[in-house]
């Protein structure tokens, strides 16, 4: 055919059998193809096919929810790369962190991970602020707001568990200050109100070696066991919960009336 000769190399690729087997719609030119481009893609079909005009404006959404999710992905990828080099032991942790900058190629991964984590905390807060200010928590989106609050808490806890891993002065003292709160937990912290009530005769069930702080730290102070605990929580435990809640969160955005806007 005469048309085929006019194709530039990019179009040729896009019309090849390999490309078409992956992206079945071809180049999204027609309206139908553009709709199918969203529907036929497992990642893109998180989105609806069409959106109200206001919803794609940066001024309306500030892109903060999307950025939070994007930062989660950035942190996952940079975190996996960091895990290749980092060993969560008191002996090696600090020197591994130094090596990450000085010895490892692309030694900027820790910086990306660290600053990205701070940015994610801010992005999640601002996302919540935006959702409040547009009244997008109101029915039918009540439940999704609550899931979002949990995700915000989890984001901060993720950041907090990661804080310990460099094993420098900043890390252990910030975590010491933070986890010291746990000892004052009512009933289950050994310096919390009501803890002395949980006793059998003279034997206290809740003491410095059995309370919630001990469970969090794996000891009576921030040490080797804490480092391992926080490492496991940071890399596996908390992201696992976060991913489940994120799946619920995104699913419910679609199910509860789509992207926020007047219903």
């Amino acid at each position: 055919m005469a048309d085929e000769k006019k194709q530039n190399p990019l179009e040729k690729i896009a019309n090849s059998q390999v490309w078409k087997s992956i992206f079945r719609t071809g180049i999204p030119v027609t309206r139908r193809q553009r709709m199918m481009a969203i529907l036929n893609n497992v990642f893109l079909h998180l989105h609806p096919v069409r959106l109200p005009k206001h919803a794609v404006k940066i001024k309306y959404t500030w892109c903060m929810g999307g950025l939070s999710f994007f930062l989660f992905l950035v942190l996952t990828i940079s975190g996996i790369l960091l895990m290749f080099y980092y060993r969560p032991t008191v002996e090696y942790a600090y020197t591994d962190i130094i090596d990450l900058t000085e010895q490892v190629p692309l030694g900027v991964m820790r910086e990306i991970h660290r600053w990205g984590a701070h940015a994610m905390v801010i992005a999640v807060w601002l996302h919540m602020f935006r959702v409040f200010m547009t009244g997008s928590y109101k029915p039918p989106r009540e439940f999704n707001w609550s899931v979002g609050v949990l995700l915000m808490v989890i984001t901060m806890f993720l950041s907090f568990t990661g804080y310990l891993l460099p094993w420098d002065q900043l890390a252990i003292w910030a975590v010491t200050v933070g986890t010291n709160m746990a000892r004052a937990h009512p009933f289950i912290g050994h310096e919390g109100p009501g803890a002395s009530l949980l006793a059998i005769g003279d034997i206290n069930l809740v003491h410095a070696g059995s309370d919630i702080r001990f469970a969090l730290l794996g000891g009576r102070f921030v040490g080797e066991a804490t480092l391992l605990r926080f490492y496991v929580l940071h890399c596996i435990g908390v992201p696992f919960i976060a991913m489940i809640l994120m799946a619920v969160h995104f699913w419910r955005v679609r199910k509860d009336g789509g992207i926020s806007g007047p219903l």
Partner: protein
Amino acid sequence: MIDIIKHFINVISNPTISFTLLTVLAPLLFPPTDWFEKYHFKFGFNRLWKKEGAYFMFSCITLFLIAGYTDEFAIKILTKPDNIPIVLMFYLIPLTLWLAMNQAYNNDERLARGEAPLEQNDPKDKVLVWPDLVYIELICLLLFMVFLIVWSVYIGAPLEEPANPAATPNPSKAPWYFLGLQEMLVYFDPWIAGIIFPIFIMGGLMAIPYIDTNKKGQGYYSFKERRIAIFIFMYGWLALWVYLIIVGTFFRGPNWNFYGPFELWDAHKVEALSNVNLSEYLWVKAWNQGLPENILAREFLGFVVVILYFVVPPAILAKTYLKEFYLKIGSTRYSTIMFFGLAMLSLPIKMYLRWTINLKYIIAIPEWFFNI
């Protein structure tokens, strides 16, 4: 001249002054009632949410940061690697606040004219996600990635000396996003500031959609239709969260004493601590006798005060000023709002009690770790 301004900022930064300013300004910035709204417009606070307001806020923050980066003491705090996200927030918080309020006021004007809000969903006028949204997302994502990489290349991540359990830094600070909670420790014991309040904040936030029965303002920026809800949220967000983080980061030095932003962190600064418990006020100062042996007898007034605080104001308000509101939303919602609201309000109340009469605890039972 510049020294006088710096000294002035040091003085007004003291929580006793800056928090009072914030508390007085809050209802004028976000007027929850007609009365406040009158003065909101009279003093021209509404102009903050117009273009000139944005320029004003932007210049104030920039001037403050310029003064900070040229000051020998402030620069130490501003350039501390762990504080860099908060410097970023100096711009982001006012920017997002302005964006939200600006659009809210625009929509309020439209609604007052009987028009639909700007975000009104016209089912016939929709855009396709491909390409209108996916491209915006791609651009956002790329720009942000560039920003993050540049940030990471030029500013190293915080790293101090290796951990040393024997050398406690003074001050020891939690991660910056928990500094608001750490700041509350000045006024409340760890079991409240570190456990109960975080649970209440979480619970209160999650309860918002269930207690705010106002159906208006759903899905678009608005202020007037939801002014009480927004006022309460703003006070919590700006005064009790962001502000306390700023205090905890920038104004708290050795021994958690107050230091102005342009002040040397002198570890030998002496602050008189002569805080007195309510029970001591009652038994020793008023009744001129020793504290009784029995703990409950000693602290009975504290228990009475706390219980009355959570019971009497809601009950009175339900019969008088908020009668219609109470009947409209029912007793469960009403008591939830009142409980979380009073819990939130207890923080500023305790702050002022500390500053005015040096009150340490309302209920003081260290024997049971039960201090309020």
